[in-house]
């Protein structure tokens, strides 16, 4: 798979949809393509975060450590973007990501990510939009959960 294919993959990611292809190419060129075999972890909950990953092919589980042991809370697939929280606000990884099948990713280091956002502010706006969507999504999930709880306690 050459860099051109990676650019195509990046274009399909909502976060980068509005960004000039030549910028995406620079990002692809400057980032490392990493392949994870099935069952390998991209990172572990509690690790220091140094990079985010863009999924080009394959799927992965999001696993959170709970008192009852690891719990799969979500799964990501092609064109998803993971790990950005840890590099944006310097907190340890909030979850573990484990490859469910052979997984091809682009590793965007913290340094590269900030450089790109700095140089191309439109990317920063996109990141904000995606994060806002997530908050919206999380909020509505929270509301649903509350309602469900309230119903149960009635």
């Amino acid at each position, binding site marked *: *798979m050459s*860099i051109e294919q990676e650019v195509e993959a990046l274009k399909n990611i909502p976060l980068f949809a509005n960004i000039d292809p030549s910028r995406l*190419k*620079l990002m692809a060129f400057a980032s*490392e393509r*990493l392949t994870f075999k099935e069952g390998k972890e991209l990172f572990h909950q509690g690790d220091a975060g140094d990079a985010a990953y863009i999924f080009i092919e394959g799927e992965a589980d999001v696993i959170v450590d709970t008192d009852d042991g690891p719990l799969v809370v979500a799964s990501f697939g092609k064109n998803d973007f993971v790990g950005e929280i840890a590099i944006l606000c310097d907190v340890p990884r909030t979850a573990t990501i484990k490859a469910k099948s052979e997984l091809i990713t682009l590793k965007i280091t913290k340094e590269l990510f900030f*450089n790109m956002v700095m140089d191309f502010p439109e990317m920063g706006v996109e990141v904000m939009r995606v994060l806002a969507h997530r908050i919206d999504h999380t909020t509505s999930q929270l509301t649903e959960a509350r309602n469900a709880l309230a119903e149960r306690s009635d």
Partner: protein
Amino acid sequence: MEQRLFKYIWKHSKTDQIKILFLVLASMPFYFLSLDLPKSIINRAVDSQNFADINSTLSFMRFELPFGEEIFGHPIILIEGFDLTQISLLFALCFSFLCLVLVNGLFKFVINTLKGQLGERMLRRLRFELTDRILRFPVMHSRRVKQAEIATMLKDEVEPLGGFIGDAIVTPFFLGGQALTALIFIMVQNVWLGIVAMSIVLVQAFLIPKLRRRILDLGRQRQMTARALAGRVSELVEGAVEIQSHDTSNYERAEISSRLGKIFKIRYEIYQRKFFVKFLNNLLAQITPFIFYLGGGYLVITGQFEIGTLVAVLAAYKDLPPPIKDLINWDQQRNDVQIKYEQVAEQFQPNGMIDAEMQRLEEKHSPPLEGDIVVSNLGLVDENENKLLEGINFTVGVDKKIAVVGNASSGKEYLGLLLANLVKSSSGSMKIGGKPMVQLPSAITGRRISYVSSEAYLFPLSVMDNLFYGLRNWMIKDTSLLPNSEVEYQREKQEALRTGNIALNPNGEWIDFSSAGINEPAELVPRVTEILRAVDFEEDVYLFGLSGIVDCENRPDIAESILGARIALKEHLKSTGDEDLVIAFDPEKYNKNATLRENLLFGTPRKKQYAGNNLLTMPILRESVEEAGLKDSIYNMGLSIARTMVELFMGLPPSHQFFEQFSFISADDLPEFDKIVKRADKSSFSEISDSDREALMYLPFDYVEARHRLGLVTEDVEAKILKARQIFAEKLESRDPDAVEFYDPDSYNSAASIQDNILFGRLAYGRAEAGATIGRVMTELLDDLGLRSEVIEVGLEFNVGIAGNRLSSVQRQKLALARSLIKKPDLLILNEAAAVMDSQSQNRLVPSIMEAQEDRGICWTLQRASLSQHFEYVIVMQNGKVVESGSFDELNKDGKVLKSLIDDE
């Protein structure tokens, strides 16, 4: 050291000087004769009036006592001589002249050679003496001097002394003799002309040195400013971080510029004055011939003077100004070097110089230190009379583990220096085993005591040589005599001795392994490993070893074992299903995880011209690329890379860090490549200029397909590269067989590191776990194969760089600790030696070093008071005084200073 230069010269070279002087004196009569001969040739042989006819004769080789007739009333004939006809006389006189020229020349040759030899010998003696003094500087003084200035003095400033010393005594005699001879000769011819010549010489001799006094003064200033400049320039290098981090480079520029301006001003004035003196000197020198021509000419015309005599006087006078001039120069030089010598000598006698007797070479093991360290009323003041230590008293066994604690101003550092005998106390006394410390020579303190400071210095040698540096106390055996012949060796030794140098061979066997508990070679690596483990440095050395190169000629066994590890690694990876983590070098395949250069070369360059970008300039490579039809492919790859780089990087600011990290083309060159790409796109392939092609050809050599993913290495390109690889190898085999060591799956590559040899390939790009997995597996394998100690052995050859700068500061301290431990000292003094390490490392290190030191003593000046819990005896200091001492348990109580120090941490 003598205060006066002439005293120094006379003391060390009088016999040589007298020998040369004797030769100079012996040369004088010949010189006088050579002056007299031209007159005889013209007056006696050429002038026909002396000969009545062709057969009449004149005497030859007849010597009369000069002024014999005036003194005795009749000529006194010394040699009778014999009679010759006119033609024969001419021949005889002319050939005598030739002979004299030859004899004079030979004298000059021998005298100059001897003078040169004498000067160089004295220079060697002086430099050795100055170095000897540097070695005896008290450490407090060494801290204050600027190394660059000391080095300039030793190297450059004494240099003219060497040239002068050979001339110091001989030249005034020689030149003075010459001038006097010429003058006497003129006197003999005509007293008045002689007096004229002499009076002008006297005016010169009086006036010129006066005018030159200011020049000398300026010369002294020049020397001082130049020396200070050398010191400042070295500061620019040493303070590079501070200058750059504070943006003071322009201030430094201004500072240097003003210094250079000062030097210029001084030098310019020197030139002005020098050339004025020259002008005056020449003028005076020409006044004499002016008088000779006028007066002598008048005398000849009026018939009071023979023309031959005038010619001889003029010929003799021609020889007068040069010696006078040289004599004046000599006098200036004398003043100049006298000043230089005094200035240098002054810098090399600081207060408190270590007595030479204390550093005397002792060729046997010193007795171990025993008994108690008794410190009574010890005090130390600095040069401003500030009290650093005051009234220190304690008594403790040499073999005890002692901790000294206190805050930064407590003076504990000085106590460490005093105990190591590196600094002399100002008052009080310190005894070890009943002997006063000040009387112990360095053969005892330097061998039985070890000292490590907080910033230990490492020499730019291998880890091994640094480790055993402390055991080079005396030459045990002179082993390197073989390359030189015995005669040559003895000659060199004699030469060293006659100039007061030391005649020991630094390449002989110096390291006293037995003191380190190593009695046979097989014990070396285990013992070293043990010590390295004690200071937690073993893993570091192991890693140096992995990236180190095995000396295959001397250690074929290691190479053989490593080759075994290569096979084992491959099998291991196969068994765990990880074989795709390493892409092995295969002579028949293109390795997409390696650069294009590596794929072409398919080996490790042994010669520099085959490494890096140099490779492309090698004709052998160019031919191979052309023959394989690869040239156009490389060009096309270059064009693609350039096009991509222009597309990706053109919009970025030139200072953007992406350029350095990712771009094939630097920010400066990018606009040029932009133009090249545009030109190439517009024109057809054949129209592209050679220079554009050339520029593009260099780009693809660092290209790694798996990493850069531009899809440039197609199957067609692969095939051509494999062909070029083969052609290149064949050509190299016949034309430059030693240039490259080729990759061979079945043999050890002596030019590559151990790691590369085991891996024999490249880690696969894009495999997240590749680096960590391979590193772990490799270590396990080497351990299983029992090769760890061999790798460490290679790691011990790692060169630590200038002042150890290839090591981190923590690594440097660890190596310094190991260097002190391996000596098995009776007392190990550690002056905040672990201060650069983090607390956890310190916590591990203290007990570990205690254990390695066994039942011998330690005195550790600790940075953290809590570490004193490991020690038998604790000394607590405050403001240069001991406030309490005793066991840790006694002092770790409420109300005690130690307790409060620990609580503050």
